[in-house]
């Protein structure tokens, strides 16, 4: 054991930053972990204190970054949580180096990933997640003058189209699979969320030069060695666009691997928590996308609640209860609005690879009775991503229940996995 803390927070996006800040401000010894090179999560990826003021919600980033820096919270970046070798201990890895960390209370803020649904050509170079392409641009990819088709589902599509436009790409079109009626309902509920409405409108206005079409989705991507064109449909006719990149993701799903490993009960696709964000696993709280895809505002509120609760200050936590409830309802409405439509189940052909790690085709999976049977017979989900991409797809395509999680929850060196659990007593909060 190299260190022990009252509170360990896994995931340094907005939810984790808020949780760590509040707990540290109350005097707890706190460590905030993230596998990325710096804090901020996906929504604040690439934000810098010198330039954030110019970005949407940059001032919120600056507020929380400043508050966190004024505490004694330790921030460990580049560390991946892979296992719990003993009660009150998490095992981490960075660049092949293993380390154990002790905790009294644990707050999980592991965020979400895009839902990827397979279609012919989705494994071609140049076909990426929508958030994936945006992340690469923030990571230094030069996107100037590239033609990009944005497709899939969810508010992320407009956000991505907007930031790619700013970065100099030519957005060929933005194609949202949700129906007009679903979005109209969503628009009405947005009226109760002024901040979000303004945000949506801003994205929309910036990208207005490109087509924004509802009720349309990708049918296939084609090209020699990389994507060269994309065919879309509205269910009646098909059309094709030439492009350099296809940015395609179907809303978001929570990263449940670590909560599941720690025994947190999952219901309806999310970690079940009480009013203080406590999961069914004693001493383990979950915040942000893990409890419902609600974005920045929800993550910040839930993070603060978990931070107060970790400090034993439940009364402060409860003052945020009404806000939390409103944001959770918003998350539920988003899930309904951007739920993938039936037609998307039919996109993959017999030869389409569903499991990208092990190259398992749709034909090999069709007719299997369960996720477990599919894994045993085809190696689907047993490659390096451990089912993070194909498991989510298979859940939708075949209706299989994907449950359970085994250590290591991320691919790690054998030496890290095999090290014996050290048994120092963690500091109790």
């Amino acid at each position: 054991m190299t260190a022990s803390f009252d509170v360990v927070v896994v995931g340094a996006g907005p939810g984790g930053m808020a949780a760590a800040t509040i707990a540290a401000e109350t005097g707890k010894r706190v460590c905030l972990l993230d596998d990325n090179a710096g804090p901020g999560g996906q929504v604040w990826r690439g934000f810098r204190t010198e330039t954030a003021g110019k970005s949407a919600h940059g001032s919120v980033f600056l507020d929380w970054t400043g508050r966190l820096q004024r505490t004694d919270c330790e921030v460990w970046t580049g560390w991946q949580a892979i296992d719990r070798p003993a009660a009150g201990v998490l095992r981490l890895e960075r660049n092949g180096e293993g380390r154990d960390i002790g905790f009294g209370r644990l707050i999980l803020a592991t965020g979400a990933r895009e839902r990827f649904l397979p279609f012919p050509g989705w494994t071609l170079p140049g076909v990426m997640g929508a958030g994936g392409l945006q992340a690469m641009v923030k990571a230094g990819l030069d996107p100037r003058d590239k033609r990009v088709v944005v497709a899939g589902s969810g508010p992320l599509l407009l956000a991505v189209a907007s930031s790619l436009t700013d970065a100099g790409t030519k957005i060929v079109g933005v194609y949202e699979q949700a129906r007009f009626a679903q979005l109209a309902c969503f628009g009405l509920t947005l009226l109760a969320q002024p901040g979000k409405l303004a945000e949506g409108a801003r994205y929309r206005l910036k990208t207005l030069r490109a087509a924004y079409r509802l009720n349309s989705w990708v049918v296939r991507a084609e090209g020699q060695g990389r994507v060269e064109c994309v065919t879309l449909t509205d269910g009646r006719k098909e059309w094709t666009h030439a492009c350099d990149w296809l940015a395609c993701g179907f809303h978001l799903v929570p990263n449940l691997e670590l909560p599941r490993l720690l025994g947190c009960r999952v219901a309806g696709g999310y970690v079940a928590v009480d009013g203080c964000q406590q999961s069914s696993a004693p001493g383990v709280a979950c915040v942000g996308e893990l409890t419902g895809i609600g974005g920045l505002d929800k993550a910040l509120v839930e993070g603060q609640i978990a931070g107060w609760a970790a400090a034993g200050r439940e009364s402060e936590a409860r003052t945020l209860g009404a806000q939390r409830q409103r944001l959770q309802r918003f998350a539920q409405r988003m899930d309904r609005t951007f739920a993938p439509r039936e037609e998307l189940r039919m996109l993959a052909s017999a030869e389409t690879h569903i499991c990208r790690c092990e190259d398992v085709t749709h034909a090999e999976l069709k007719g299997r009775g369960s996720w477990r049977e599919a894994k045993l017979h085809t190696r689907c989900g047993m490659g390096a991503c451990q089912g993070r991409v194909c498991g989510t797809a298979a859940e939708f395509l075949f209706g299989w229940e994907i449950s359970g999680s085994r250590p290591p929850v991320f691919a790690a060196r054998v030496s890290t996995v095999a090290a014996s659990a050290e048994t120092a007593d963690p500091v109790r909060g």
Partner: protein
Amino acid sequence: MAGEPAQMKDEGFSITVNGKPVRVAEGTHVAAAVMMANEPSRYSVGGEARAPFCGMGICMECRATVDGVPQMRTCQLVCSPGMEVVAG
């Protein structure tokens, strides 16, 4: 969501991707360099060329050999001068 892309400064340095030199700005992640080189990051078990996909460390398509170390997730890794990246 409008974050600041890593600044493309005139200074910067070169790395190689499958032997092809690519000039990158300080702070650029290796997966972004792989994409700018228009090279695959890995070959699948069936031999297909693959390139960065999720951009955030979960899909493992960007795994490549970096300076001789295999299976590095290049989307989480920042470039350093002279780095050699080879499709895994």
